[in-house]
């Protein structure tokens, strides 16, 4: 017996755009159509086929891949690349249009937490209901009930109708039930984005331990850090096709750098178009060199200046711009905020257009591509007004001037950052009075 668990061959799924837009047809439309071509239409609607003029799109096309027992496979791709459709086909929620998938083992899907929770039922009742919906047997739920409740941390409220739960409690219980599923193959879609940070960590830990139990997991996420942590192998979907399949770091960097060339400026002309809300909106973000000129490629020893201009529209909040800088693998290198600027710290803002510049010194980043997320938020309590990913991208290169961390060394230097750090070295001659420097070898 082999160790293959999933094999997808030439898998394709087609959607009718017409049907997607309208959602469903009204009888009137069908009757009008029927008057035109009665018999044909009757046949068609009984069979559930769409009007021929509906536009067809392939959500998945020629998808081939294999998954082996115990593998934790990440699935990444832009919105609409077909990730969710793939999971839905594997979970048998929807049928493929062409091709086939062979699956060995029970498949459990976690496409959304809290599916089928009923607000009027208590936590206990919902646990059983949800468990049954997710394919657990009554006895299995009985057996794991205490574990589930302990994990969700809502012991006290387990007999309260869930409509009285806070959204955090609701999600915790929902995740707890789902996390205790016991299928051989688990399909997970972005569910880790629930609850507060502490609970998210707990969820991640749970996912990791599930992976280590030897179960096969397919994990769809936009969170590259999570993908990195959980999955040794990743497939990248682009427009319904498998664009890459392999080692996580390589695939992620291909994904992140695919069509994201360097980007030194983003600008919005009016507040209405700009990202943000009634408190703050972005006006312009730019990458500048030492002399204030827009640039997107920097020599390693040059400073990089990141400028954020924004409209402060509500004077009550002590918000500030924050930058997150990621490398090409999606790993967050640093987070920086204007909270150390004495003109700002903890003070609420007068209405106006603000311009803040963050200066990253030269000899800081190592060579590579870097991507900047821009946030405008209040630190405590945590509130976001602007949260935009990958607004700016820049490249750091080392032309071999000899003035960077690697000096004259001609090849690539490891690390995501490349600061020149102070080193101190002293020399003690052998055989001197303080000659404990070299331990003697015992015989």
């Amino acid at each position, binding site marked *: 017996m082999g*160790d293959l668990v999933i094999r997808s061959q030439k898998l394709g799924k087609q959607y009718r755009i017409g049907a997607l837009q309208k959602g469903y047809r009204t009888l009137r439309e069908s009757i009008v159509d029927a008057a035109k071509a009665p018999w044909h239409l009757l046949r068609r609607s009984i069979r559930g086929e769409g009007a021929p003029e509906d536009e067809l799109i392939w959500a998945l096309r020629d998808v081939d891949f294999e998954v082996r027992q115990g593998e934790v496979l990440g699935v990444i791709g832009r919105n609409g690349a077909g990730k969710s459709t793939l999971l839905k086909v594997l979970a048998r929620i929807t049928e*493929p249009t062409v091709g*086939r998938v062979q699956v*060995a083992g029970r498949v459990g899907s976690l496409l959304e937490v809290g599916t089928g929770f009923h607000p009027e039922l208590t936590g206990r009742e919902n646990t059983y209901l949800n468990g049954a*919906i997710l394919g657990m047997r009554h006895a299995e739920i009985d057996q794991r009930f205490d574990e589930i409740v302990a994990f969700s941390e809502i012991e006290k409220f387990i007999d309260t109708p869930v409509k009285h739960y806070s959204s955090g409690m609701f999600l915790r219980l929902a995740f707890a039930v789902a996390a205790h599923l016991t299928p051989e193959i688990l399909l997970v879609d972005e569910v880790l984005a629930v609850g507060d940070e502490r609970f998210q960590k707990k969820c991640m830990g749970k996912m990791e331990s599930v992976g280590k139990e030897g179960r096969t997991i397919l994990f769809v996420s936009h969170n590259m850090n999570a993908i990195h942590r959980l999955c040794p192998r990743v497939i990248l979907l682009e427009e319904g096709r498998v664009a890459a399949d392999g080692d996580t770091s390589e695939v992620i960097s291909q994904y992140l750098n695919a069509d994201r060339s360097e980007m030194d400026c983003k600008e919005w002309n009016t507040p209405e178009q700009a990202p943000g809300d009634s408190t703050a909106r972005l006006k312009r973000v730019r990458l500048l060199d030492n002399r204030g000129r827009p640039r997107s490629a920097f020599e390693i020893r040059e400073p990089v200046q990141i400028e954020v201009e924004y409209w402060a529209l509500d004077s009550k909040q002590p918000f500030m711009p924050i930058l997150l800088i990621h490398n090409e693998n999606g790993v967050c290198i640093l987070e920086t905020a204007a909270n150390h600027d004495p003109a700002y710290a903890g003070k609420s803002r007068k209405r106006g257009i603000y311009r803040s510049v963050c200066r990253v010194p030269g000899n800081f980043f190592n060579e590579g591509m870097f991507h900047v997320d821009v946030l405008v938020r209040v630190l405590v309590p945590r509130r976001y007004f602007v949260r935009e990913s990958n607004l700016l991208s820049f490249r750091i290169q080392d032309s071999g001037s000899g003035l960077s961390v690697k000096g004259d060394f001609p090849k690539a230097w490891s690390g995501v950052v490349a600061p020149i750090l102070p080193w101190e070295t002293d020399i003690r001659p052998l055989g001197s009075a303080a000659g404990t420097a070299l331990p003697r070898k015992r015989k």
Partner: protein
Amino acid sequence: MAKRPEGTNRVDFPQSEFFGPVTEIAPSKGWVNLKLREVWAYRELLYFLTWRDIKVRYKQTVLGAAWAILQPFLTMVVFSLFFGELAGIKPGSDIPYPVFSYAGLVPWTFFVYGLTQSSNSLVGNAQLIKKVFFPRLVVPVASVLSGLVDFGLAFAVLIGMMLVYGISPSINVLWLPLFLLLAFITALGVGLWLSALNVEFRDIRYMVPFLTQFWMFISPVVYPSSLIENGLLRILYGLNPMVGVLDGFRWAILGTSGAPGPMVAVSAVVAVIVLISGTFYFRRMERSFADVV
């Protein structure tokens, strides 16, 4: 499977590259098989969904389960006034009109509830259908089943009424479950058709109230089926499966004249045909539910 001791591999099916028995996911073609075994495998879910529908039905109402009794009972009072007294409809035997009409309303209410609930069941559970796999048949079946509790409560009142009027049930009552089953089959059969159609055509939702109202007038709820005397017409009348249900139900519990004849047989056959065709249509459409609903 991984831990199977060495040496037992030999008895396995032809060497497979797969880690265990394989399920195949592929587009289904033509009229698919019913996969009733799969529904059976999900019987616990059926139980939980039925239980949920029952549990949630009268939540946040003041009268609670009393509604299960009030609806048929008040209808009976109105019918007795207008049809029994004013219009002077005779039940066709010595049964008082209130008991006669209530004995019809109990299975009728069950039928209407089952039909209405199951028609809306797929749309009402759209979230579930889009996110989780299970045999979709479970949803409308659970909807009809959940009406059994209401039926039981209303039925208890029927027994009470019979005591008050001094009517004792005959031995025919043993047949009662059969007619209840017939009502179930009819409600489910029509419900399967309508629920699958409702996924694509939301018109169904607005059609169902009319349908049930119309259906009541062509069924012997307020009047006895004996109004139709011509033998051939009676058999045609039996094409409405609810005719068989109502006549049979009254015969079983009240012992009204005339054992179920060919009319009821016709009804039963029609009900079964509706159920089977509905199941096939439902399975046929099932593949696109998650995309369209």
